[in-house]
């Protein structure tokens, strides 16, 4: 099959467009496991359920005072006016408190789902939401395995509400408001690597007191907020079926196939079209004869 100038230019054009367009669609995720992220260690055994972290957070961000209080049988959830909740569960070791808020994943699903980079995993560790970027599509809420981003449904200018680990305070060398106020030592702020060391030490020193599992060390590829408790986390309302793969990985196969499809598909279709045309011409010529 000969290729004339016109066809050659056509193929060249289509290949060029797909090449340049395909490039921009690939994933460019840097491997972030080597970076030292900031994190928070929450030790459930030290928590007394005083809710001062909730109040401090509300004050820091001008949100209304938290309502209700931790009690067994009542599951409070974070919402658009409440970024932290402390809950109480009846467990095999009596009543235990547990804190819930954004876990600041190492490789967050919300940031990977965001088409405007409004959700951003900062180099310091906190996952923050940026008002000037967000268009309110709520993909972050669809993707987050912990259901943490919350949307202001009753506002004409809605925002996404979630813990931002007091990013501004951290940058100035401070620590998050909730950690600052916690008088019981249940919350510790520091580098994630150090926090894991601390958590391991605590388990090692008091093996009877703790459940030997640091929730967040491996879950969903590792989270910035780490949890220690005396009972299995299932009893504290945590999901134990989230896996240890980071969630953006579920998209990777699809996203990697995009440039390939954009390049190979048009080329294949053009070839198919050419061969069909040729056959048609042949048939019509035979008919003429």
């Amino acid at each position: 099959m000969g290729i004339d100038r016109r066809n050659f230019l056509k193929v060249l054009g289509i290949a060029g467009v797909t090449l340049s367009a395909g490039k921009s669609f690939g994933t460019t995720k840097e491997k972030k496991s080597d970076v030292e992220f900031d994190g928070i260690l929450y030790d459930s055994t030290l928590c007394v359920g005083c809710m001062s972290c909730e109040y401090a957070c509300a004050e820091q961000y001008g949100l209304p005072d938290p309502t209700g209080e931790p009690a067994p049988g009542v599951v409070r959830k974070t919402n658009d006016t409440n970024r932290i909740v402390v809950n109480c569960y009846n467990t095999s070791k009596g009543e235990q408190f547990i804190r819930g808020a954004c876990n600041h994943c190492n490789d967050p699903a919300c940031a990977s789902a965001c088409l405007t980079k409004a959700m951003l995993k900062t180099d310091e560790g906190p996952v923050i939401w940026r008002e000037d970027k967000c268009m309110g599509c709520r993909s972050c809420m669809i993707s987050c395995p912990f259901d943490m981003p919350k949307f202001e449904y009753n506002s004409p200018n809605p925002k996404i509400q979630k813990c931002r680990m007091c990013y501004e305070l951290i940058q100035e060398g401070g620590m998050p408001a909730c950690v600052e106020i916690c008088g019981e030592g249940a919350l510790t702020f520091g580098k994630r690597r150090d926090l894991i060391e601390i958590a391991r030490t605590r388990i090692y020193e008091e093996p009877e007191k703790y459940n030997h599992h640091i929730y967040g060390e491996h879950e969903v590829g590792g989270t910035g907020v780490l949890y220690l408790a005396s009972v299995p986390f299932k009893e504290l309302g945590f999901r134990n079926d989230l896996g240890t793969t980071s969630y953006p990985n579920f998209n990777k196969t699809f996203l990697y196939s995009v440039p390939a499809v954009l390049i190979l598909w048009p080329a294949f279709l053009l070839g198919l079209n050419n061969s069909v045309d040729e056959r048609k011409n042949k048939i019509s010529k035979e008919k003429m004869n």
Partner: protein
Amino acid sequence: MNSEQHTGVLKFIIHELKPKGKILTPFNVISGITILAAIVILVIRFTNGLGSVIHASQDAPWGLWINFNVITGVAFAGGAYVVTFMVYILGLEKYRPIVRATVLYALLAYMFYAGALLLDLGRPWKVINPIIGNSFGISSVLFLVAWHFILYMGSLFIEFYPTVTEWIGLKRQRKFFVSLTLGVVIFGIALSTLHQSGLGALFLMAKPKIHPLWYSEFIPILFFISSIFAGLSLVIILETIDQRVFKKSMSFVHKDSHKNIVLSLAKTCAVAIFVYFSMIVLVFLHGKNYAYLNSPWGYWYLVEIIGFVLIPGVLFMYGYRHLNLLLVRIAAVMAILGIILNRLNISTFAFNWYGNTIHFPTWMEIVVSLAVIFSQILVFRWIVRRMPVYTESPTWVKYEKQIKPIKMKTKKRREQWKVLAE
């Protein structure tokens, strides 16, 4: 084009803007009331926030406008890429009479459903962000889908534009845009492949939230394959309705080819459905989710898979074998319902299934959803009544390849064409 011609074109368009046909028909009244109600609801939505109108919650963030109009509606717009593939790439000339209507339907579908997306966005004034390049979230599936929507809308517009030029009488523009057709068709098919599957990929990260019977890593492929017969089923219904509504103005070629086209589409649908069904069976076996089958969710799953995938597939095949148009149309309606079920199951009903609260949309959401569809139909009708979608192109259009009348050629008709050809 000089200024005189310009004013001529302008006058022509102003003249054509006037409604044709009866105004007070039942359809017009119902759609008019729905659209007016939707406008009121949308005013409330933009002043009081989304929560005042839709039943989306913190657990189920997307309401009906995204889950039905965008995610489901776009699957039905898939007919355009399949039909253009068959006509322009495979050279199956028998489908040519329906190309224009299909492309027009898809173009309007994308325009109106992208519009529905804007209604659902919390901060629609920021929608320009992922387009102008100040914040490209290139690792996001939605980013890809959004861009493909925009590019594909452009492709569909270029594919349809020759019809517009024939209507206004822009000969040179027609020539130019017709020469682009093959290129944009190929580009459009590639885009469609990716964004039809991309709509499924939106849910890949919702792994812990979607019921295991519906979630699998193959969602994108299932979405793509199902968009083939979803789109074609809609084309069958669209053609059936249009044959009645535009009966008077429809050209001989369109009327004559209708039965043959519907039956051939039925065959394609049957093949696509069986591929889809076997994929589903494979995914089910692969997922080892047998235990879930004997539960209310499992029964619901079987209703979808058997009742609205397998049965329409069999009906399509049977209808095609026995040349039964009615059966094919019933199959098409069932396949359409099946796709609606599938998309809503994944995005709404089986989403956050363990929460034990099933999300039903509010009546206000439904009114707006319907209004979007009604306005699409109204615009479709407006265009079909004016532009040569189902009518013959004006005489100045020199067809390089004459549209051939298809099948059921009686001797008499054959002779008629011979005379015409001479």
